[in-house]
């Protein structure tokens, strides 16, 4: 059996960059050899200092034009709350057409930060998972061009059909931070987006039917000339990395997150994000994720210095990992 290639992708952080910069970053990453990218979908930034949260579906259209050939998927969109699943399906289908099929739809149960802006009640995790479970089969059918009518506990759809469709339906991946959502991903999705290097997530996903399907995760790092500078950049651009994960879905506004991150120490940030100029800690962090069972790692350089990161990647990281970006297969090329 041939060894599978190490699959590395590039992460586009909608909270940190305005839309034109995201498009430029996507083009630069593609030019640097990346074949695949993942982009976050936010209504609010985590903290006011991040300062951006463009409409991801508009950004995807521009990326399709600026970086032709680059695969891009959302990581992740919420399936129910601020966007009706119909609108989400239509947006995904259009993005998939513009990206010539090189698109995947990453879905999650949302964060209060991004979803409660509609003024609706913020449901508990179990209820949000139930809503996602209701919506997933509807999305699968809509993206295959079926006419869908549905009146369920969380969603109603009346004789809806998408008229603009890609040649093949995009893969739908579901994000999981715990075993219950990993099971849901195994049962109802084409792949898993895991948020932690935690093998029990992969086990649960595979046991529930996900064996052999894509398992993506993200690695936040901050390449910088010194560790201190890296930590300062994370403090400015992604201080929420030092918060316990349980808060991320529950705080309501960027202001509340700004209050919470005042309690986060620099040590906690340095533990959460690989910072500095050394290649060794990045290699170790990638290895940990691969060894946990992830098939692909999206590298998220925190902060504005994307060029510095791409240089580090080209000059040191790829060699140290024995990785070849050109050999990364596109997720969208696999049968759904």
């Amino acid at each position: 059996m041939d060894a599978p290639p190490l699959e590395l992708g590039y992460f586009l952080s909608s909270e940190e960059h305005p839309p034109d910069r995201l498009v430029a970053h996507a083009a630069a990453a593609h030019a640097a050899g990346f074949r695949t990218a993942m982009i976050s979908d936010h209504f609010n930034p985590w903290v006011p200092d991040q300062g951006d949260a463009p409409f991801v579906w508009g950004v995807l259209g521009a990326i399709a034009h600026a970086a032709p050939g680059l695969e891009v998927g959302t990581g992740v969109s919420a399936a129910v709350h601020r966007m009706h699943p119909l609108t989400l399906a239509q947006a995904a289908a259009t993005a998939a057409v513009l990206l010539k099929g090189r698109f995947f739809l990453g879905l999650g149960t949302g964060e209060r930060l991004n979803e409660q802006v509609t003024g609706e009640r913020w449901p508990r995790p179990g209820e949000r998972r139930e809503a996602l479970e209701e919506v997933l089969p509807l999305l699968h059918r809509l993206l295959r061009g079926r006419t869908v009518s549905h009146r369920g506990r969380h969603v109603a759809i009346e004789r809806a059909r998408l008229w603009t469709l890609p040649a093949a339906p995009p893969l739908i991946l579901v994000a999981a931070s715990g075993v219950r959502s990993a099971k849901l991903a195994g049962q109802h999705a084409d792949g898993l987006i895991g948020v932690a290097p935690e093998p029990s997530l992969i086990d649960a996903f595979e046991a529930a039917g996900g064996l052999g399907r894509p398992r993506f995760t993200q690695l936040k790092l901050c390449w910088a000339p010194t560790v201190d500078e890296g930590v300062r950049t994370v403090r400015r651009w992604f201080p929420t990395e030092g918060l316990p994960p349980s808060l991320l879905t529950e705080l309501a506004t960027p202001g509340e997150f700004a209050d919470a991150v005042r309690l986060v120490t620099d040590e906690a940030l340095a533990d959460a994000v690989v910072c500095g100029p050394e290649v060794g800690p990045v290699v170790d962090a990638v290895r940990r994720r691969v060894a946990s069972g992830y098939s692909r790692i999206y590298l998220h350089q925190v902060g504005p210095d994307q060029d510095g990161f791409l240089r580090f990647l080209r000059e040191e990281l790829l060699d140290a990992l024995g990785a070849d970006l050109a050999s990364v297969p596109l997720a969208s090329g696999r049968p759904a």
Partner: protein
Amino acid sequence: MDTVDTRQVQELAERGAQLVEVLPASAYDKEHLPGAINIPLTRMTPDAVAGLDRGAPVVTYCFDHQCDLSSRAGRWLEQLGFTDVHDYMDSKVAWLADGLPFEGTQGPETRALARVVDPPTFGPDDTVAALASAFEDSPVAVVVDGDRVVVGVVRPEARSLAPDTRMRDVLQPGPPTVRPSIPIRELAGSMDRDGQRWVLVSRSDGTLLGLVHRDALEEGH
């Protein structure tokens, strides 16, 4: 009376010791050490022990090390005139957890050990280059030390790392393990609840006995 461990019980049994399970008959019927007889402590009268050979060693055992029945039974046998009495304090649970032979209505064929396969094993200093064909029949490769004690597992994705990457740098420590004596039905239930496709089977000291696939726990497998 002295306290003996599992290895000493095996030696005593080979020398003709009489193994006496002092739990109630229902527990004995379900599972007991090979050749053991059952004299529940509640019924251990002088008459009940008349059939035991006073010239040969006697080993008392009960359920586990927290249970005091084997110790009390041993002392009572000394009161009744037995001079070569040994208390197997760790008792049946320890015996079964080591995967040793046993008898009973819920015998070895109903336990996890009956369904294990041999997973590929490697040492912590082997490199991922050795994994080439490790995953043809196994979901994981198991990393063990020189005594076959489980150190961790390596998943197929590790093959995508540089070939000189050492197992110790990529293994997942603390993979789930169960004892060989766990009933198949109970194991199937817990694996479904925890979303496990496979689990390692090991002795109480961590020695690898094999790997069980969830699919192999189905009836008629």
